[in-house]
């Protein structure tokens, strides 16, 4: 009787371990972009007349006293050297960097080719470069580790598949893509908890990230009425309606206020 119980117990344990092992396999994403997420099955892009395209540019400002960037203590890993400061709100003389600007609405049923060139996410000095990244759905993100320490890359999406992979020093780049549109998809390194960045996955190529002077530019936009969204990781989203005619160059500025506590 006891032997039967023990055998049953062992079987149940083996089944649980097998389940865990199988589930890991399912969760482990492929190293290369899968076919159904890439452009292979995507419908043909809607043609745009290059002679009529417009440009939107502008500056994003921060209204109010700029918060002092928090210092980051990287002493828990000797492989992380140099100064490090939080990049959650980066203000230079009133200009707000790291704001993701994209055409949120107005493109209708247009489709666009997914670029074949990957966007690069670099880990250097135990920080992500860039801090805010824009990518089209299905486009390859190439993740590199230039640090003498191991990182793990762990996106925590709401609408895409979650994964978590470690990347030792000098190892080959990891290539991934994201199938669904998702704005401010957080990515973190659990080995270095201060390492955080955001990937913005969009369906069109009309997006930009403000530089250190708060400037952005979106080129090649077909004439039309659009909603332009400005998204900042801590300060949220602000939208503006804009109409652009053929060959227009419009300046759309935006201003963010400090987040209310």
């Amino acid at each position, binding site marked *: 009787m006891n032997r039967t119980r023990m055998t049953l*117990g062992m079987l149940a*344990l083996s089944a*649980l*371990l097998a389940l*865990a092992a199988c*589930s*890991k396999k399912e*969760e482990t994403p492929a190293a290369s972009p899968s076919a159904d997420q890439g452009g292979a099955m995507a419908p043909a892009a809607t043609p745009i007349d290059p002679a009529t395209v417009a440009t939107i540019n502008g500056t994003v400002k921060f209204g109010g006293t700029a918060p002092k960037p*928090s210092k*980051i*203590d990287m002493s*828990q*890993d*000797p*492989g*992380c050297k140099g100064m490090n400061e*939080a990049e*959650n709100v980066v203000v230079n003389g009133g200009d707000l960097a790291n704001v993701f600007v994209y055409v949120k609405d107005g493109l209708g049923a247009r489709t666009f080719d997914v670029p074949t060139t990957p966007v690069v996410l670099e880990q250097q000095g135990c920080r992500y470069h860039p801090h805010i990244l824009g990518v089209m759905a299905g486009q390859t993100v190439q993740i590199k580790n230039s640090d003498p*320490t*191991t990182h*793990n890359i*762990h996106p*925590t999406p709401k609408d895409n598949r*979650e994964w*978590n*992979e*470690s990347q030792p020093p000098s190892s080959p780049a990891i290539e991934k893509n994201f199938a669904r549109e998702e704005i401010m998809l957080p990515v973190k390194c*659990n*080995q*270095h*908890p*201060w390492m*955080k960045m955001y990937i913005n996955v969009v369906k069109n190529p009309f997006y930009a990230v403000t530089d250190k002077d708060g400037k952005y530019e979106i080129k090649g936009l077909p004439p039309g009425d659009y909603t332009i969204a400005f998204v900042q990781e*801590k300060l949220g989203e602000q939208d503006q309606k804009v109409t652009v005619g053929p060959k227009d160059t419009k300046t759309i500025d935006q201003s963010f206020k400090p987040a209310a506590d």
Partner: protein
Amino acid sequence: MNEEQDAAHPASSSVRCESTTHAVVQTLPDPGSTALRAIEIPYNRGLHRLAVVLACWTFLLIIAGALVTSNDAGLSVPDWPTSFGSWYKIPKLVGGVKFEHTHRMIAQGAGLLTILLAVWTWRVEKRRWLRVLGFAALGTVIAQGILGGLTVLYYLPPPISSAHAALAQTFFCIAVAMAMFTGRKWVEEQPRAEVDERRPTLFTLTLLSIFVLYVQLILGAMFRHHGLSWWPHVVNAVVVSFLLAWTAIRALTVYSQIEAIRRPAVLMLSLVIAQLCLGFTAFLTRVAWGRDAVQPELPMVISTVAHVAVGALLLATTVILAIQVWRHAPVAFEERLPQAHRDPSAA
């Protein structure tokens, strides 16, 4: 009620206990004959020491696990049951890996100690229920390991991570109880067996205390693992404080002469006060001041880990108090009889 149960709770039936120097001899009525049968429960120092080591090791493991959560290092080793693809190689212990892999190594030690304790108990222990408890501890530690693995493989889902946290403290309680059951005092002491006639009974109060502490543990774990807001844990803290204070005050006013009840009651009351202070500090460092922290800050880590550790001690102390109350202050015997047996003619 079988003989082993009687051995654990002599006051619950017509059992007579006689203390000897190194063993308790319990005389029990033999249902088959009029002869009396004796069970000797020898004190085994080695077994007791192993149980104490396991309890201390488990406490260390709970601290290590709390450090993993507080340092947001739960997924710094992305695979399980291997670590970075290896079964035995120790990775470079830097960053989050330092916390996560150390936790895994201490957990392996706890697993080995539990196997040793279960097998040793099975071989030398005469109390069958204690032998079963040894293997129940083993089953718990295996389930805990699997939960730990699942939480890694499924990227820290709050229900699984919280179950992992709750089962950790359950295992700690089992280890502490085993250390008590194998102790010299438990084996050789003659229970006072003062019947509790107050309502609700002290035993009921201790059970309610354990229940609300478990609820509190789950609410706290759900908050720590981002599955719930902080306020249910804070609201329930009021209920926990009231109930545990009531239990401790009842124990100290009615049974202060019984050391086995007085000591855990005093400890429980002290731990409740300490835990309230730590909870308030943890709230300040994590919720009020640390909400926008760019990385886990030391005051937050220290206060939250201490809050988890003292919470584990509080739960284990309450379990010990409940067991000691059950032993020394049982509920009046006639209450346990089915209704039909309460008829005076049946008596």
